[in-house]
């Protein structure tokens, strides 16, 4: 049973990568923007700032006002990344040292709790609920389940089969729904940084004072 599922997961991963690449090509197809105004700053410095200081909680009022959500989001993402690492290790039939395996279990389970917390917040906060489409719930449930089963599967081998099934479904879903932000997050942040860097707003000269 394990071998066909492994193949299915790999096929789903290939689909995810291919479909994301296609989505990126479609996005690139909208064309770039030739800028004629003289730059006031350095777009590259803006991009660096955008991916570093601008992402710190202190630089974002939105995060400072929602630290529990931010923390839940960070743990959720960390848990998901580790779950994917566990998936790769499983597919490659690599045996993890016990301490590492235990850390991975804890992180993935914590990640799934983070995902559940965000799901509950989405369901219970009126403006978030109003903002949501079915995709928001499907994406969260798939990812949360994937992370939870990743931790559980390493403790209880029979769970590996449902985990791999969920992994395949999740990978198929990645380019369809909002999980495609796993790619578009990077392109968007880069564009944002370049835009504000070009105009001289990033890196922020006053960031130190705001702290």
């Amino acid at each position: 049973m394990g071998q066909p599922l492994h193949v299915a997961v790999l096929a789903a991963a290939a689909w995810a990568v291919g479909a994301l690449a296609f989505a990126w090509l479609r996005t690139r197809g909208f064309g770039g923007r030739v800028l004629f105004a003289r730059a006031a700053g350095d777009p590259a410095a803006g991009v660096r700032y955008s991916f570093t200081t601008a992402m710190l909680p202190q630089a974002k009022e939105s995060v400072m006002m929602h630290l529990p959500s931010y923390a839940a989001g960070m743990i959720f993402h960390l848990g998901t990344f580790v779950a994917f690492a566990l998936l790769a290790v499983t597919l490659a039939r690599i045996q993890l040292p016990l301490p590492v395996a235990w850390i991975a279990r804890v992180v993935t389970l914590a990640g799934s709790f983070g995902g559940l917390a965000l799901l509950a917040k989405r369901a219970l906060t009126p403006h978030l609920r109003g903002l949501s489409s079915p995709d928001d719930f499907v994406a969260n449930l798939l990812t949360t389940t994937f992370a939870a089963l990743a931790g559980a599967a390493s403790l209880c081998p029979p769970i590996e089969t449902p985990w791999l099934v969920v992994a395949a479904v999740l990978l198929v879903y990645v380019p369809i729904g909002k999980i495609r932000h796993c790619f578009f997050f990077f392109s968007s942040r880069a564009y944002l940084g370049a835009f504000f860097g070009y105009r001289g707003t990033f890196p922020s000269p006053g960031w130190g004072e705001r702290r």
Partner: protein
Amino acid sequence: MTTIEARIDALTEPELQHGLEVFRSRLRAAEASYLNACVHCGLCAESCHYFRMEPTLENVPARKLDLVAAVFKRHFTAAGRLAPALVGARPFDREMVRAWLDAVFGRCSLCGRCSLNCTIGIALPRVFRAARAALAAMGLVPDDLQATVDNSLRHGNNMAITKEDWVDTVQWLEEELQMETGDPEARLPLDKHGAKMLFTVNPREPKFFPLSLQASAKVFWAAGEDWTLASDPGWDLTNYGLFNCNDDEAGRITQNLVDAMARLGCTTLVIGECGHGFGAARWEGPEWLQRAYPFEVRSVLEIMDEYLASGRIRVDPARHAKTVTLHDPCNLVRHGGIIEPQRRVLRQSVSRFVEMAPTREHNFCCGGGGGQLAMAAYRDRRIRSGGMKAQQIRDTGAEIVVAPCHNCIDQLMELNKEYTLGVQIKTVAEVVADALVTGEPLPTEWKGTA
């Protein structure tokens, strides 16, 4: 003239299709990337002054973006075509047009504060501009905003001031300046060929705030600047094409500035204290015209900062004993990159300067940006959303609010009344002009106007 509601009801399928095509044509890879990236985390909500003062779903920036993204997904993505209900894709129909109008004209000042607070990094105003452009292509720009653009196209300035009135005002202010300075050679030069700087102003200055223009002239006089005003189109720095998002119209208005620079042979275009005017001329103008300017564009704030740094003018901060705070116009600061010059100028020109919290590119919009001041239908929302700025001002304890933008000044004056703030509102040039220390002769190389 039919109402905008009636125009929406009368939209034909080809007109809707045309709007969609214009929307598509305004998207580049950056905007397409943004439209693929939102995760509906909702953390942007409190970054918006509309949401802060009226916490409803319609005021959440992500909701406004979602209305635009829904159309993008439905018409430009496979998932949106195959599973619209799952991913929240919706067609571009009359109902959606109505929703867009309310969201991107009625509930957004394009201030971009949400961009900095977005966990992903989505520059929402760039997307909203594409949506506004689509509405403009369908003739759905609110009439009063469009009338401002039409004034610029027909009269060369957005307030339809005649050349005679403009020239009379400049000559009158020159006499006032001569009396104020005691220098009969003090000038507000008009059409001085070969002057180094062409100084452009917001028509609100000659129309309602002539002392603002006189203050700038006094600073130039003190610095011995080689400058001029233009008597023909090209003296008005405003460009409401930035707000109706009709690039063709915006480009034609920008061309007035380019033509004036060529006509007068100036090397530096100086934008007076106006946020959107700076954004339009400095950043968007070359894009609208699709060519680089053969001259430099600078804010008058940068010029004053340099005067002080070089000792070309001197100021006495003791002349301003009251506590002063500074408002950051979104198009000048967050989107314009002019962040520190005005601060350096004020710190030298006043005794007590306090920053708002938050400040600089994180400052709140006053509520008057994005063309809101020109759209009477949304006046109540504008005043309500300005409550955030009113609170910021109150928290500083300042008696004087300096705003290097006439749109912002108009909004701040209304907020001053509505929220009984009891503050004075001034431009940076007014503060500097009042603090100028004059009387010592200038070095020869700076005697441009003599």
